[in-house]
């Protein structure tokens, strides 16, 4: 087994643990590269067809290319897609900085979906290497009654005996890609031929390295127009993946506040 084989085997193990013990559950599809990889892995884990819904928290602010991508692959992959609109901006914490407020609409959408469908677990494609706050995460991470993440009081996670239990009214976040790096993701995309949005590839000297909403996500300078070029670029780079995500940079603790409130 090479490193990608072992990452794949581990993620499949995690997805099967979640499905076996936590129902109802759903997979969060941000339409970005990581969650596409996650869907790919889930299709392998469940022998072709994902036996639970795939949730897109729709702010209405995605790039048009991204919506086209969603509709095409939801059909091709036979996904049970739920794409409820997120609550409007007026409903989220007004003390958050502007870009974080837009991102916080997803948190609110997520809370609504949990209320509406009664999910016991949500599978999310976050990775530890993306962002320091996410580095603190568990693979199976409990969320409290108010949806909140209590990073000060996380349960032990020993070997692969994940936290599978939850008191009534709470839920778990499941993170099958937590141990992957950005480079792992791209190498796996290359190996498996996983489709990703064309926004990741350079046009006119710019490409998106991380995809979020229009207006709060910005492209980086890049000439990487295909997957091998992206991989080569990542091997050489020293800049952070989420540099183009405005909400990460609005204050020393802005992203941490988002996550404590239930953001991904």
């Amino acid at each position: 087994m090479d490193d990608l084989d072992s990452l794949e085997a581990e993620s499949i193990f995690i997805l099967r643990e979640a499905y076996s013990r936590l129902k109802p559950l759903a997979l969060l599809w941000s339409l970005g590269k990581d969650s596409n990889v996650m869907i790919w892995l889930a299709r392998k884990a469940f022998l072709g067809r994902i036996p639970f819904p795939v949730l897109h928290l729709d702010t209405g602010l995605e790039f048009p290319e991204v919506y086209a991508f969603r509709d095409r692959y939801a059909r091709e992959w036979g996904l049970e897609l739920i794409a409820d609109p997120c609550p409007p901006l007026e409903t989220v914490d007004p003390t958050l900085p502007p870009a974080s407020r837009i991102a916080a609409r997803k948190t609110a959408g997520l809370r609504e979906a949990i209320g509406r469908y009664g999910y016991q677990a949500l599978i999310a494609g976050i990775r530890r290497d993306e962002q320091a706050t996410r580095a603190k995460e568990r693979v199976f991470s409990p969320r409290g009654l108010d949806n909140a993440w209590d990073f000060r009081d996380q349960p032990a996670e020993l070997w692969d005996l994940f936290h599978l239990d939850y008191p009534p009214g709470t839920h778990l976040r499941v993170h099958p890609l937590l141990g992957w790096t950005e480079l792992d993701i791209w190498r796996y995309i290359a190996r498996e031929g996983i489709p990703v949005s064309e926004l990741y590839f350079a046009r006119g000297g710019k490409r998106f390295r991380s995809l979020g909403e229009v207006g709060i996500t910005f492209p980086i300078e890049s000439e990487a127009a295909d997957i091998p070029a992206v991989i080569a670029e990542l091997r050489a780079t020293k800049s952070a993946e989420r540099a183009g995500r405005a909400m990460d940079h609005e204050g020393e603790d802005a992203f941490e506040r988002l996550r404590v409130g239930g953001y991904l």
Partner: protein
Amino acid sequence: MPERRAFPIVVVGHVDHGKSTLVGRLLHDTGSLPEGRLAQLRAVSEQRGLDLEFSFLLDSLQVERDQGITVDAAQIWFRSAMRRYVIIDAPGHAEFLRNMLTGAAAAEAAVLVVDAAAGLSEQTRRHSTLLGLLGLRQVVVAVNKIDLIGHDRQRFAEVAQAVRDYLGGIGLHPAAIVPLSARQGDNVVARGEATPWYRGPTLLEALDALQPRRPPEDGKLRLPVQDVYRLGDRRILVGRIESGRIALGDAVRFLPGGQSARIAGIEAGSSVAAAAAGQSVALSFDREVFVERGAMLAGAEDAPAESQVLTVRLVWLDRQPLLAGDRLVLRHGTAEAKVTVEAIEAVIDVETLAAAPALALPQNAVGRARLLAAKPLAIDSVAECPRTGRGVLVRDHRIAGGFVVEALPEEARALTPVDAPVTPEERARRNGHRGGVLWLTGLSGAGKSTLAMRALRLLTDRGAQAYVLDGDNIRQGLNRDLGFSEADRSENVRRTAEVARLLADAGMIVLVALISPLAAQRAAARALLGERFQEVHVAAPLEICEARDPKGLYRRAREDRLRDFTGISAAYEPPEAPELRLDTGMLTPEAATTALVAHAEAAFGLSRETITPRG
């Protein structure tokens, strides 16, 4: 060169001995800091009136910066000339021991940081003991702040000896003991000029010399079953091979129970002929196997013992101490079982490593306990098979402890049943029939209880010794501690089958009225009872059951107020070859009862001639 996964290391030791600074230094000196991060670090350090403070790199959460301690196992990547590393910066504050454990359980090797002036602290000793418990054998010791003792060779030698002695006591033999200064950068990546007397490796050189652990492909075959999927009419078992290897045609056994089968198909991303430890696979077999999540697949020849008593070495994490008599849930592989703590045999004193007898195991303590499980577990000792010789203990929905199995006492494996002086034949002669079980399975509302009660009346009227075990009634007594999760439902079925067996042994005809939705559950009951088990499918279409809805359960399930309700939100697997099938949607209760009693007569030798006339 093929890419390999980053080598995970954990950095442990006392809270003030400089772990975060050491990690920051490693990142900086290997050129692994992201662009702009050094400038950001300088700015944050200056804001707080400090020189370049490497530990801020890791202390990324506001709360940590405010308190000056690292809270959780942050993961950070760096690269040496030889390979990539991922560092789990484990915290030192005692309160967060569970985080250190989480990091160490995922690591291949540990860097144990010891302050050159202060030496081995209580916390460092505790961390070391836990590394031993977790089976982390590769340790590099960083004797930090060597500049603060004036690079004193003699003092370093004393600390190194004390560390070596202590680690030896827990079976750990450090790969290197490096005198270094994280703050100055001496002997971390570059060799320091202030310690010319030291000829050993720098910290990075010592790390580069460590070997990655390989999945135990050559060990005994162990695959905890994660789940059973249905693909058309095929049942596919999924799970990850923890140890050993499999190939098409291999003979395997499932525990508990001991069903055997041969592997007919292996899927690991694509269809393959063989697979080995570390791979997640989906398997099909040459015959129907009735197993559920929690079963252990093992080689036909080297299956683990089934034990109910186990002696474990454990670390306890809950604020409430662990006491003898406590009831917990044990999880091991994909299996879980209720356990009672029979005895706390010892608490380990981390200062002296002496094992002292105790009545309780307080939070963060390491000790030895004897556990009694409610059912047999297919578990190994850690010496025999490390990956299946360990587990966790759960209390109040939280993982409250981790353990490795030290021993499986022999006497627990060999419970010898006592032979009774009265034989089944003698009972059959007296009763006029043999003991046996009519197992009525079907959806809620199909008429199982009604049918069982009517048949009980008729059989009793004919002079038979008969009794009804009704699911709802048993849940009020014997099984009142069980809920409706899949695991609890299986346990409900298992206990009911055991009671039915006792009553059948006593010569009775037992009518069991129990939904028992899964084929595997009923197969286990059949395995227990042998040919005395008569499966009766009380089959009524779901629409009819739902229309009847005698207990209002379907309505509640449809309104989403009832989770895991068979037929609505949980699966019912109809029997494929029941001894008797009664369509209660078509048959009148009278006709169904007559058919059931006739079947009992045929199956258990009950006939009009053998019945003693009454009165």
